[in-house]
Structures are given as C-alpha cells and as structure tokens.
C-alpha cells in the first residue's frame, strides 16, 4: 500500500519534470508565435531556405563520410569554387541560369575528383588522422590560393542573379521564386541521391565499400573507382548548392565556404552521419534554429554561429550517433 503511494508520487514527479521542461520550450516558441504569427512564419521560411541549401552540402559530407570515413574539410571550399565559377560563367560568358548551374556542377565534379586523386587517394590506407590533416591542408590551400589576385581576388563580390527576383505576398508572408527553386532542386537531389545509393548497381557497390572495403574488393568491386564516383557525386551536390546559395545570398568571397561547410557538417552529425535522410532532416533543423536565433534571441546575428555548435556538443553528449544514426556505429 505504502509502496503504491510512493510509486505514484515518484511517477508523477518524474513526468511532471518532463512536462515542465516541454511546457517551457512550448511556451517560449508559443510566445514568439503569439507575438506576431506572420513574422514567425516568415522566419521559418527563411530557416527552410537556409536548411535546404545546407541539406545538399550535408548530404555531400555524409556520403563521403559513409564511404571513406573522412571529414572532407575541403568540401566547403569546393562550394566556394562552385559559386565563383557560376559567377564568372554569368558575367563573362553571359550564361543564363541552367547553363551556369551546369557549369558550376561540372567544374566541382572535376575539382573534387582531382582533389581525391592528388590528396586523399595516397592516404587511403594510412591512419585516419593523416587523411583528416590532409583535408584540412587542402581546405586552407584552396582558400588562400583562390584569394590570390590573379585567381578569384580576395574582394567581396556582388553576385549577379541570373533571373529576376519575383516575390509573392500571401497574407503578409512574402516568399520568393528563389526559395521555390532552392527547395525543389534540393528535394530532387535528395531523392536522386537516395535512388542512386539505394537502387542502382553503383549505389550497391558504395554501400558494400562503406561496409567492408577488403571484402568488397574480393567480391570484384573496384573500390577506388567507387570512391571516385562518390566524390564525383558530392562534387555535383556542392556545385549546385553553391550556385543556389549565391543566388539567395548574393555576396561571394573566397572564405564564404567555411561557415556553410562547417554548419552543414554539424547538421550531418546531428542527423546521424552516414545517413542521407539524417543529413536532410538535420540540415532543416539547423536552418530552423539559425533563423530563430537571428529572429528572436537578443544579439542573435552575432550568436548564431555559436548556437549551431552548442547544439552539436549537446547532441554529441546525448546521442553521438545522431537522430538517424546506427546505434552500434560507435562500438565498431
């Protein structure tokens, strides 16, 4: 009898604490919504726009990490190169939107494959840290090399949009054709990558190489070619994402890749690195959190970079494998 009372009391206490925490979070967000629902939806749309761009980069990180277990630090800078290539395509050769997108994509594919051949391939059997440092060195090299005057110049350059900006106003919430383009391209790429990895022969080879390289080799899979194909796929993602990002936030400079690259990687870790839907969901969460920080937290625009990493550290402490991660990954 006494046991039962204690049990009920403790149960009530523990669920009460959980409910109080949940209630606090809901009341804070609810407060934002109640203050001005239109602004809130507007912020959410901005967050989604950012999240869809991050999603493409994050999928690129997660693919490489899944197959070669390497944080491709140079990926953010590949993204930067894509933005510059599309900029020069538009200004020098007067390309319209789709050809410029194609040009950036192809350029990034080539550059990524070359980086893989030169810097990563010789270290494939070396300790993982060696490859990581090489990736870091490659990243810094790309940043400073492209900042030279005869390459891309160290200046901030205003990106010229290849198409007219159209805005629609629905009940006070404005959204643009850029947002529609970004969301649709990002979803198409996501479905495409899912299809390639899940349904095609090369995708099967990728999964086999990710799982066990020596065995995959024994089964007649050309592992190096598969890894090259993975890098090419991520190059395509970076090139397209770069063009879209530059269209949405029209200012390019040679260090522009660092922040989106790092945040997309953080998003991939939050979603569960190695998982493609995880990278997608994690990026949307990341975009949402960033937009909310800028919109509602005092000093938000200076704090937003810090918040992303606080989120990362909290996630690593609670569940290092991420939302969609394989729970047994860490023990392997």
């Amino acid at each position, binding site marked *: 009898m006494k046991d039962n009372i204690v049990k009920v009391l403790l149960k009530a206490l523990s669920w009460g604490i959980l409910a109080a925490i949940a209630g606090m979070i809901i009341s804070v967000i609810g407060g934002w919504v109640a203050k001005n629902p239109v602004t809130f939806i507007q912020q959410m749309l901005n967050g989604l726009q950012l999240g869809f761009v991050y999603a493409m980069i994050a999928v690129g990180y997660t693919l490489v990490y899944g197959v070669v277990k390497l944080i491709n630090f140079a990926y953010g800078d590949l993204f930067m190169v894509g933005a510059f290539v599309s900029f020069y395509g538009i200004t020098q050769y007067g390309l319209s939107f789709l050809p410029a997108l194609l040009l950036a994509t192809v350029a990034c594919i080539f550059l990524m494959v070359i980086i893989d051949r030169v810097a990563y391939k010789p270290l494939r059997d070396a300790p993982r840290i060696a490859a990581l440092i090489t990736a870091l*060195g490659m990243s810094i090299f790309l940043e400073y090399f492209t900042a030279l005057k005869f390459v891309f110049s160290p200046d901030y350059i205003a990106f010229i949009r290849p198409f007219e900006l159209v805005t629609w106003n629905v009940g006070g919430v404005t959204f643009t054709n850029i947002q529609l383009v970004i969301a649709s391209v990002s979803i198409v790429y996501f479905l495409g990558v899912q299809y390639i990895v899940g349904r095609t022969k090369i995708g099967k080879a990728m999964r086999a190489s990710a799982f066990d390289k020596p065995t995959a080799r024994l089964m007649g899979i050309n592992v190096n070619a598969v890894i090259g194909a993975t890098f090419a796929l991520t190059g395509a993602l970076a090139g397209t994402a770069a063009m879209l990002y530059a269209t949405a936030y029209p200012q390019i400079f040679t260090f522009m890749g660092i922040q989106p690259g*790092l945040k997309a990687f953080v998003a991939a870790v939050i979603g569960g690195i190695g998982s493609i839907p995880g990278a997608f969901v994690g990026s949307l969460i990341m975009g949402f959190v960033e937009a909310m920080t800028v919109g509602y937290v005092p000093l938000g625009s200076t704090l937003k970079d810090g918040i992303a990493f606080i989120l990362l*550290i909290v996630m690593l402490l609670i569940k*290092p494998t991420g939302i969609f991660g394989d729970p047994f990954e860490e023990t392997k």
Partner: protein
Amino acid sequence: MKIRSLPTWLTATLFFLVVGVGFQIISSHGWLSGYWQQVIMLGTLMAISALGLNLKYGYAGLFALGHAAFYGIGAYSSALITKDWIVGWSGNPAGGLAGVLAIEVGFILAVVAISYFKIGHLRNLMRDKLSRWLTPFEASVLATVAMLLAGGLTIVVVGGGSGWLVRQGVLALVPPVLGALPIAMSQQVIFLLALLSGAVLAGLVGFLVGLPLLSLTYDYLCIATLGFGIITYVFFNNADKLIPTMKGARGMVNIPNLTTWPWVFACAAVALVVMRNFIYSSTGRAILSVRDDPIAAETMGINAFKFKTLAYALGCAYAGLAGALYAHLYSFLHPSNFTWLKSVDPFVMVVFGGVGSMTGTVLGAYTFELLLEGLRVLPAEFIDWRYVIYPLIVLAVMLFRPQGLMGNKEWGFLKLPKIAKKEHGQGEASAGMSKAEAQASEN
C-alpha cells in the same frame, strides 16, 4: 675515470644560459632590429603553444582543433589583470586579479567538492534505488534532476563561497602589499601572477571541456573541439557586454607592454624542461601507452580517460601561458587572432617539425614564424603567396613524410634519459613505474 658526457641538467642549464644571454646581448647592442626581436619572441612563445599541442596531439593522440581558444583565454584573462593594475579600469587596481583568481579557486574547490561528495555516483545510486518503483526511463530522469540539483548547489555554495572569499581577500590585501614595493617591481610581480593565472585558467577550461568531449574519438573529437573554438570566438566578439574593457569585436587596446626577452625565454625554458620531465615520468609513459593502444593500457590498470584529460588540460595550460605572453607583446588583442583557423598554425608547426618530438616542435615553431616573416622580403605581389605555401608544406609533409621532419627523434638533453632507455631496452620494470604497472608487468 673518463667523463663521457656532461650530466643532463648541466647541459640543459648551459644551453639555456648561452642562448638566453646570447640573444639578450645581441638585442641590447642593437644588432637586431626591434621588429626581428619581436618576431623571435613571437616564435618563442608560439613554441610554448606548439609544445602544448604536441602534448595533446603528438603524445596523447588527441586530434583537437580548439587550441587557439585556450590561447585566447590565457591572453584575455592575463591582459585584464595587468591592465587593471597599470592602467586601471575597475576602481580597485587588483580588481582583475581578484576576479580571475576567484573564478579559478572557486572552480577548483567546486570540482574537488563534487568528486569528494561523489555526486556523479549519486545518479547511479539513486537510479538503482528508484528502479524498484519506476521504469528505467523515469528513474533516470529523476536521478539526473537530483544530480543536477545537488551539483548545482555544491557549485554555488562551495565554488561561489570560496570564490567570494578569495575575491574579498585579494581586493583587501594585494594593493597595500604590492603597493609597498617599487612600482617597476610590483608591475613585474603582477605580470608573473597574470602569466600564471592565464595558464591556470586555460588549463581549467581545458579540463572542463575535456570532461565531456574526450570520450569522443577521432573525427567527433576534432569537430567538437573545433565547435568549442568557434563558441569561444563568438564569446570574445561579444565579451564587451560582460566586461566592457574587453571591447569585444573592436579589440582590446592599451595592454601594458610587459613581455620582454627574459620573460619569454624563461617561460619557454621552464615549459620545455617541465614537458621533458613530464613525458619521461611514469605519468608520461602512461599517456604514451594510452595513445598507442587504449585497450591494452586499460588492461594494464591505466585509467585511459584520466590520462587523456590530464594531457589535454596541461596542453591547454601551455596554450594559455603562450597567449598571456602574446597579449603583452603587441599590447593589442582582437578576436580575429583566436579564430579556429589560428588553431591550425600550431598544428602546422607540430606536423612539420615532428609529431611527438619536442625538438621538432620547437624547430617547427621557429621555422614557421621566421618563414612567415622572412617571406615579407618578397615583392609586394607575392606577399599573399605565404599562406598558399604553408598548406602546401602540410600537404607535402603528410603525403611524403607523415611523421614530420624530425619524426619522434630528440636532440641533446631532450633525449630519453639513459637509465630509462636501458631498462626500456631490457624490458624490465623500471623504478618509476606505478604500482599497478609494476604488478601488471610482473604477472
């Protein structure tokens, strides 16, 4: 009897005397411009920072990228202390010292109290008790909340209380005591205190950061420490909201110019000797064994996590010391000196010089700084090439000689001591081994 070589302590003392006094003579005769003197001093303090990173990465095998954050913590905290004493901004000349010391003492005592009361253990104890009535999830929720409450209470009572006492004590005692000294001497004493407290604060923050993060491995550790570096950078950028004199993104100015060659050199010499003795002690061997094979080390009774945290915190303290020297060298601090890209600089020095080699690290630091400044003689259009060359060097070293130029070789008095080497060679239990190690090797 023929004396083959001088004892180690004598060669070390002679070496330090020759180099230290020699450079002092050269610079006091004006044979070296003030600019190059500053470059040499910068190289020396970067060598301290790189030695810290070498301990983290070379000896403990922790690939951590947040080194510049600790460098910045040491720089800002020490600058607050000396600036308050000499320029004055908080009303009491010891205000900065009192604040930093209060944080440090409060922090240490809070950690001691938490481990003394076994508050981490409390959670498991309570969860086991509660699991009689509750599901595991509910039990762990209640236990975690109780642990957080108990921990928070301990931190506030023990840490806050002792910190407050220290603050009051320093505010009341230090100005009259130091004020009795001649002004020049009191400035040097404050500088010494600032250097020490900068290093200690960086080490403590390193310990605090290491506790949760060091259980992560490889890439996760890298990205989490990188994240910490960016969080610290954001904090420095907005620090003026907390302490107005830190000036945030505008940069902290008017820091007294106290760093001189004797200070830098003495700090570097002490840092080098401490590092050498630390790494050849039984603790150092334990750290090396954890790097080489954590599982084997654990079976030998070595607490891998403890030694990783120790190495990490000590490495951070070295970064803090270097930062404190840096702050008083140029008398200007800006957050952009402590971004995560700056964490790569000491990394390049270590990788270039030799991972796990003190000689290599020191040589790497000087090579890096002298090369970076020496390349300024290039014509103006090639100046920007400096930052293109150094990642290329990293790439080349990683691809062709991943262990660095020196590998893990040491020169002179930094070599493994003879006695230890002999025992090492014969595979006997050495005198310096801890009980557990000795037992394990007997079995």
